[in-house]
């Protein structure tokens, strides 16, 4: 799946926990410096945010009309 914001997308909207967390961490490991990835979820992943901050990643979250949170994460 690709997205206008980035080609690196984890669509975790129908995954059970901890699937979204694990899939995001795995994709982050594959990104090159300066690349971004997008996580799609129906909730805000606060525990993931904390880990992202601890590991020095930036992220921006946008809530879409259908209830999807688009979380754009920098490598």
């Amino acid at each position, binding site marked *: 799946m690709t997205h206008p914001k980035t080609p690196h997308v984890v669509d975790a*909207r129908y995954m059970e926990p*901890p699937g979204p967390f694990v899939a995001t*961490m795995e994709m982050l490991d594959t990104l090159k410096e300066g690349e971004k990835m997008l996580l799609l979820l129906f909730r*805000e992943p*606060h525990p993931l945010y*904390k880990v992202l901050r601890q590991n020095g990643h930036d992220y921006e979250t946008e809530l*879409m*009309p259908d*209830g*999807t949170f688009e979380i754009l994460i920098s490598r």
Partner: protein
Amino acid sequence: MQALLSFENAPPFAAPLRFFLTAPLFAVLAGLLLAWSGPQLMASRWMPGALAATHLVTVGFMLQVMLGALIQILPVVAGANLRRPLLVARIVHVGLSVGTLMLAAGFLAGTPWLLSTAALLLGSTLLYFLAVCAQALLGVPSTSPTIRGLKLALVGLAAVVGLGIVMALALAYGWPVPLSALADLHAGWGLGGWAGVLLVAMAYVVVPMFQLTPGYPARPSWWFPVAMLTLLLLWSAAVLANLAWLIRVSQALAAIAGIAFCVLTLRLQAKRRRARADATYRYWQLGLSASVLALLMLLVSSAWPAASEQNGWTIGFGILIVAGGFLPFITGMLYKISAFLSWLHLQNFGQAKIPAPAMNKILSDNDTHRQMLAYVAALALLLGAVILPDWLARPAGLAFAAANGWLFWNLANAVRRYRLAQADMAEKLAAL
């Protein structure tokens, strides 16, 4: 390794568990009280037994689970960390449990000092809980409808507790207050402003997450908590100004908002991607259907007030919304959260070297499904007892006590299996 990092935010399992294990026992007490008192308990909502049973269920069961769950999930759904969660849990659990028992005893015995002491104990416990939550949420921006809902639900909790204290003291010392209008408002803030808004805010997260449904659309999700609080403020102003028509309009609009949420959730569930229907899903279906019926009753009585003077109307509404609506929502989530937390704590305990047992090894679908059938039978008897109290009140009380005793048994068994699994994993880790 990375996955373990998310565990840092989780409070110790003992923090929410004490609430989850105690709550069903209060519902057992409520059932036994009905079995012991018999049909006279259902004669009016003002009967001492009815007041005691109502609060054993709403404070002893509902509030108990909700506060325990909040201590657990505030970091997860709002990024808000409670300081020393185990200490907070111990203080709140003792205050709430002792306060509920004293309140029920105060209603039954009609003893002023018991009622006023219970009100002050519950009031101070909940004030402490609100202060702890406010401290944790201070500076947390409302970046999602869930966080906004959580904050507004806590405002609802403050309102229902404030009204409850005033009413308990008024009952104890015979203060001249309009008890009937205040009781309706107290129930409105409790069920709509606190429990309803909290449930909705949690549903935004847990329904898509555990039942694999589409998400709740953003716009109505942002507005529902605000609309509910605004309508309750309107209702409160109408009580102060003694405007009966405005009370009815705000009740009708609150009922419509509640029905809209239930219908939306039923539609989302119809699109779920999880093929198997587990107890949580079935409990939610029951809760949503019963809530729609109860809220239709509220809509009818606000348009046609004489309806609420029909025999058994108010008691029937109360049973339908509390035992038919909220208890199934809460029990359904309780099963899912208990199994998930057991798995999460075991997963962490295994240090990524020993895998945790699957969730259904901790709490099996068979056990939860059979308990749910017992609960449905108890609910049917309770509703039947509204029409035939002489025949069905005592059997309904016994059935309600048995179904909730079974819930306790299932949860206690899950904890036993959790401890066994932990001991087994400790042995395997030591052998590595």
